[in-house]
């Protein structure tokens, strides 16, 4: 379903003849040490003058055997390792994994825990999207100013995460059947403050960026992703929605309690870099609505299913695929249990990797400067690509 058509479409380029006599092409490797490749990532470019004629992404520099380790360590011990997949968004990584295990083992989640999951998940989405805008502008040469503003807001949310789970980034917070611990005193009030100030921050951020002619000149019309290609390649997340495809797992699967919240799904029309940036900013605004509703409506109650076990979970033999709308796309976990305390097979569907497969198609015909910008707009984290 996925790869055959794509391969046929790009086969002409795969057979590109590099060194013909009247054509000077440059073969360059960009990375793995490069300030703009978002981690240890290499792109083998073939350039005709300044135009990209072939691009091969090479990754695996950050492979850490996450899946094998999880298969050896057991269900509980895999949770801290999932933090380190998309190391910026640890809460949503945890959520996808515990969702899958709950599906596999038939564990239910109490209502308060579901609200907590929505709150931390949407907070993660907030800072992921503004930080992406910051990184994109950094790659464009804005010398870190939008990035510093985004990080300033992210610090407030990381502070909340540290108060809640003990760690800013590697939260290790969600458990099978709920969450690890309850809110400390005053957390909801502080989170409410952060959320209510965030809208003003987004206004300032957009004033700095959205109408900026230089950003528009560099981002509009660059790296256009047609909707058909996106669907064929399995691209998910804001990149897919920027191409105009209405597919948000929070509306499709309605996992957790998302069905209770009113929020809209922004769609782009052109699928270029600017649309991918704008869709993320609009999604951040929608997340604020969800957060305000969730913080207001969170009920009292237990945060962990009373029947669940912390240690020694042995789900019945079977398999389950659980997925959520992570900030980067559809993050899925596929678990096969053989009835023992360790999963027989633990497989991660990383959205960054799947979204990266169309990088060549997006970059063909553009210059090297645009390659950096397009890579930035796809939003990859190498921890997830390589696992």
């Amino acid at each position: 379903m996925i790869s055959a058509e794509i391969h046929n479409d790009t086969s002409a380029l795969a057979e590109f003849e590099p060194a013909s006599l009247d054509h000077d092409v440059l073969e360059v490797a960009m990375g793995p040490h490069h300030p703009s490749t978002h981690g240890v990532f290499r792109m083998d470019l073939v350039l005709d003058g300044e135009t990209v004629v072939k691009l091969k992404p090479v990754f695996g520099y950050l492979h850490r055997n996450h899946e094998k380790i999880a298969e050896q360590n057991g269900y509980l011990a895999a949770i801290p390792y999932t933090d380190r997949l998309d190391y910026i968004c640890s809460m949503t990584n945890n959520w996808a994994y515990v969702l899958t295990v709950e599906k596999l083992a038939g564990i239910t989640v109490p209502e308060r825990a579901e609200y907590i999951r929505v709150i931390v998940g949407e907070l993660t989405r907030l800072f992921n999207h503004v930080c992406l805008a910051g990184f994109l502008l950094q790659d464009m040469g804005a010398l870190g100013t939008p990035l510093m503003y985004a990080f300033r807001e992210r610090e407030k949310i990381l502070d909340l995460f540290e108060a809640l789970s003990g760690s800013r980034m590697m939260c290790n917070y969600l458990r099978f059947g709920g969450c690890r611990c309850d809110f400390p005193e005053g957390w909801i009030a502080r989170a409410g403050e952060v959320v209510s100030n965030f809208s003003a921050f987004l206004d300032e951020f957009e004033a700095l960026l959205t109408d900026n002619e230089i950003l528009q000149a560099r981002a509009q019309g660059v790296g256009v992703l047609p909707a058909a290609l996106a669907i064929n390649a399995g691209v998910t997340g804001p990149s897919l929605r920027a191409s105009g495809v209405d597919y948000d797992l929070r509306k499709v699967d309605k996992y957790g309690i998302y069905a209770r919240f009113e929020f809209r799904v922004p769609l782009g029309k052109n699928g270029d870099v600017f649309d991918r940036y704008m869709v993320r900013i609009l999604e951040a605004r929608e997340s604020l609505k969800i957060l305000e509703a969730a913080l207001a409506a969170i009920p009292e109650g237990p945060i962990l299913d009373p029947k669940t076990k912390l240690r020694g979970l042995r789900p019945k033999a079977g398999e389950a695929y659980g997925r959520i709308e992570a900030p980067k796309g559809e993050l899925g976990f596929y678990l096969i249990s053989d009835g023992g305390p360790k999963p027989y097979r633990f497989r991660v569907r990383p959205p960054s990797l799947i979204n990266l497969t169309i990088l060549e198609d997006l970059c063909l015909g553009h210059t090297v400067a645009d390659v950096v910008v397009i890579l930035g707009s796809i939003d990859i984290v190498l921890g997830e690509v390589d696992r």
Partner: protein
Amino acid sequence: MNWLDQIFVTSGHQLVSLAPASLQPAASVLLTIAAIMAVCGGCFALTTIIERKGLGRIQNRRGPNRVGPCGLFQPLADGLKMLTKEDIVPSSADKAAHFLAPIILTVPIWLTFSLLPFGRNMAALNLDSGVLFFFALGSATELAVFMAGWSSQNKYSVLGAMRAIAQMISYEVPLALATVPVLMLAGSLSLVDIVQAQGGYALGFVPRWNVLTPWGLVGFGLFLTAATAESNRSPFDLPEGESELIAGYLTEYSGFKYALFFLGEYLGLFAVSGLGVTLFLGGWRAPLPILEWAPSWFWFGGKFSALIFVFIWARGTLPRLRLDQLLNLAWKFLVPMALINMLAAAIWHLSPQWGGVFTSPPMRWLLTAAMLVFPYVWLGRAVNPRAGAKREYAYAE
């Protein structure tokens, strides 16, 4: 307070008179050179730290503040670092060109400082063709850029150098054209005369600086844009962009030679800022009659610092333009605007003589403003066709 205003001139004369009579001309020249080098070198050191702290404050953080009070000795630390780094020259490089390139970059710029009137009677050289000499020296620096790229014998460096040259040559044209109205209306190429021509106050308190006229404002804007591009500063810093693949003409330089390039870039910025202050902001003239008690060099320094601050502000705010967009901007927007600006300046100057309704001041303001605003909007739309259309985003049903 005339003595304070002329304090440098008089103390310079005093020092020179200490030397024997036959050596006095040489002593005077050497003293001037030493003074300019000291002041500009000190400015360079100060600017590096002010830039880092300024960028820091824009980004909600402090800049360097550990070395010395408020980090003011940071340039010393940076200088020491640059000087003690190993000077690596590629084995296949063209040694002579590799060695000479940084020198050819910095020497002409030192020469341009001799033209700037830092205060009343404080221009080291009052050449009749001051502006022409200035632009000639500015163009000489581009040779150094190409020498740097070519001598490194590295295909990336050559490509980077060629891109840098294309940028710098393209922006020389609007830079020169933006200054032509000033020269036309001052009637002289001498920088001292241009400052003289900006004297006096309209309505008793509005200084007659060139920037406070429609053509002067547009000219100043063009001048600033072109100056940013000439100095390879953000948003036109493609040749030095660290996120670009092609590392640029500076790849093969390290140690003191790299420091010289760095110095040359900042000195170029100072030179062109000084020129901007002289041509458009009234040089060493005070902004209000009641403020004329302050020394002239103080006003020059103040305006100069304000311009440097604007450059730092632009660096902290704007992303980088791509090369083709940069060149488009130069040739399709700045050059036509500069030409129309020349026409507007001429009309500004000549329209009171047409008699009738044109003798009233608001009329020539209206005329020149209309002449400048409509082409600006139209050319702007032509160069960035997407800027007009605001994108709408739908939400899923």
